[in-house]
């Protein structure tokens, strides 16, 4: 079987979560006996390196018009990009299955697939298909229920360069491509629910991101002399809630407890503010992926205070693997998962007071925290995720063969 992965950016230039998941899928497909190739895009007419490999996975790069944000977001069509995608596909032996990992910057590529009736699966890792802001947060910071066919976008999230009718056209275009997909997969029930609400009748499967469980062993006994440790893992930003969490912790000031904030921070003002909140809060900088299990083993309670709805949160699930109950925002998938399993507590995302109260509660109720720990779900293993997709690819290949 020949599988093509379509993703808006890739290694080595970018190394985010979607890129890593794409590489994981491609390598799992190879181990399972399939040929796997990645198609990605870069800004510029002609990429400097149009073809290379990453860990044995071939990657092909096509160029895109310089800096046209509207086109990248799915407003309007870049004919040249479409032609490049067509030339690329013409240059390759046919693919049996195509997996669209993210359509950002590559809506034209998905259109080519649909026009050529090449079966494709789309994974929804966020809300790009129904929200040009990607996260279902309006310009004014309010949560958005969905585009309502583009009307909500036109009312609350206008783009100066976009024509009034562009929002409805984008909605029709991108959701039309979802309807033409042979499989639509969301990374969480939360994402699937939002999409189903806005695209009536669309069948959406749910396959979460897998955790590399082999890196985690049984939870170790915590050292008796370690202070109660609240932990934050991920990019340190206001959107991810690092500020509100740290301020909540400083306000609660639980006796003998500490807050460790681990992850890269690109916001100097935020970093300075966090450092000024007292010695019990540490800002520890980025961590290598291989060291994540050790970092999590040093926490007692994971905090995921995102101010925008998380579509999945790998950190939360890696925390489960490390035996960590969680305090999480009351929005997005993290809230849904913690509420479902009762393995922590949801907290009003934007409220410093609420975070302070939750931290005080967790610090003073060890039995409750122990019960949360007992209720932790078993995360999906990364190979399980790969297996589910291998079944989807087989379905696509059957469609391709039948066509």
């Amino acid at each position, binding site marked *: 079987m020949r599988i093509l992965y379509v993703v808006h950016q890739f290694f080595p230039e970018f190394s985010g979560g979607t890129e890593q998941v794409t590489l994981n899928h491609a390598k799992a497909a190879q181990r399972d006996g399939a040929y796997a*190739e990645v198609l990605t895009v870069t800004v510029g007419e002609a990429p400097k390196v149009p073809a290379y490999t990453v860990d044995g996975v071939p990657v092909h790069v096509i160029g895109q018009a310089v800096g046209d944000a509207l086109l990248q977001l799915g407003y309007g069509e870049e004919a040249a990009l479409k032609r490049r995608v067509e030339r690329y596909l013409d240059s390759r032996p046919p693919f049996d299955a195509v997996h669209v990992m993210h359509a950002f910057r590559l809506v034209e590529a998905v259109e080519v697939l649909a026009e050529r009736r090449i079966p494709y699966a789309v994974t929804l890792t966020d809300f790009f298909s129904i929200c040009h802001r990607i996260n279902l947060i309006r310009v004014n910071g309010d949560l958005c229920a969905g585009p309502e066919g583009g009307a909500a976008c036109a009312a609350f999230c206008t783009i100066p360069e976009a024509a009034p009718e562009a929002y409805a056209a984008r909605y029709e275009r991108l959701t039309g491509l979802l309807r033409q997909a042979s499989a639509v997969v969301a990374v969480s029930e939360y994402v699937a629910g939002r999409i189903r609400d806005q695209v009536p009748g669309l069948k959406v499967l749910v396959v979460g991101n897998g955790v590399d469980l082999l890196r985690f062993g049984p939870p170790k006994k915590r050292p008796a002399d370690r202070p109660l440790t609240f932990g934050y893992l991920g990019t340190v930003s206001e959107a991810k809630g690092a500020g509100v969490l740290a301020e909540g912790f400083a306000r609660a000031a639980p006796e003998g407890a500490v807050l460790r904030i681990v992850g890269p921070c690109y916001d100097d003002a935020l970093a300075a503010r966090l450092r000024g909140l007292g010695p019990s809060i540490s800002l520890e900088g980025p961590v290598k992926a291989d060291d994540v299990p050790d970092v999590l083993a040093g926490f007692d309670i994971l905090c995921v205070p995102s101010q925008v709805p998380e579509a999945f949160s790998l950190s939360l699930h890696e925390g489960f693997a490390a035996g960590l109950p969680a305090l999480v925002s009351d929005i997005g998938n993290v809230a849904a998962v913690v509420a479902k399993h009762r393995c922590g507590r949801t907290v009003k995302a934007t409220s410093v007071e609420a975070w302070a109260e939750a931290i005080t509660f967790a610090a003073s109720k060890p039995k409750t925290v122990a019960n949360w720990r007992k209720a932790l779900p078993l995360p999906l*293993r990364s190979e399980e995720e790969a297996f*589910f997709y291998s079944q989807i690819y087989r379905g696509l290949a059957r469609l391709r063969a039948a066509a």
Partner: protein
Amino acid sequence: MIIPTYNAGSEFYWLLRKLKAQKGLKGVEVVVVDSGSSDGTDTLAEKHGCTVVRIPNSEFSHSHARNLGADAASGDLYLFTVQDAYPASDTWLYTLARPLLRPASEDERVSALSATEFPRRDSELLYNAGVDTHYSFLGCRHNDRLGRMVERDHMSLRSQGQLSDVACLIPAETFQSYRYEGRYAEDLILGVRMIREGHRLAMVSSAKIIHSHNRPARYHLKRTFVDVLFLLDVFPDFSMPVVESVRGIVGGASALHALFQAWTPPTGAPAGETIAEFARRARRLAVDDAPAQPIHFGFEPLGPWLAEAIPADTHASRWDAELMRNMFADRLEGLAAFAGRVYGPIDDHLAVEMRHAVEKTLASTMGALLAYAYAGQSDARRPERMKALYDMMLAGV
């Protein structure tokens, strides 16, 4: 669920949790048969509510441990699995059990079935290629396969009668009327015995078990030695070449290893064609007068044995050296076909994997030929040295 264990390591924790998380069945009992773990495997199992049967390590055999586990189990169905496997969903066991409990039709009724494997993220290239070939042979690469008695030759018996103890589900009553037999490959033996008596078996690709290996060359050397002896023992029609000269086998292997050591897969070249080209080079290699260096692929006990066996070997060596070369090239061609289908251009990462796979193929080929050399001698005429080889190669496999 019956799991033989020995120093299962930290990942065993995840298997126990996954087994306990299985949905759709009335209940799950886990029986662990531990053969002397020193890493706490047995106590971890007890902590998770498993029944633990402890046996001395010296008492372990694949059949014996599993039979003991079955005797300690109380359920209606036995699921035999292994300590480094992992079901690929929470409804995996239910999916597997359904054809036994509620077959959709009489055509689907089977007496036992096994799940096929989905590779772990640390799986090696040679294992992946081997599974691909094996499942294609069994007819379960992409489909569920029903096996039944068709012909009596070993190819038919093996393809139809294969069960796998990585995940083998069988009603307790059926199992107890057969039980495992043999020191090794007890799953295949069970399956062949069952189809000979009219049972139908299934190899299921729709419910996978996550499992694979990444083992050193020395393991492949030993494992293939054991595999070949097993096939010769169980299937009388399994044909074998005449191999007499250990000096010839090792001479061929050491010449090929020298060729391998000088080989660097070129960056950017197509992976499959690169291995195929190396196979062609190997096939052209003159090995008839190759000096036999005691090459042991990291299996240290074999070194001193070879140092004694090679000078003492008086058989003509040319035929066996050439056989070693040709069998290695044949096997490489199989590996090349898989690599050609799966990989594109070579990079540093892939080059390392390819080199490992090629060296393990060489070790595996030498293991096969040593087994033929051993099996070619009757028990009465077999020198003590060859008996020592047998004991050495079987230890720990």
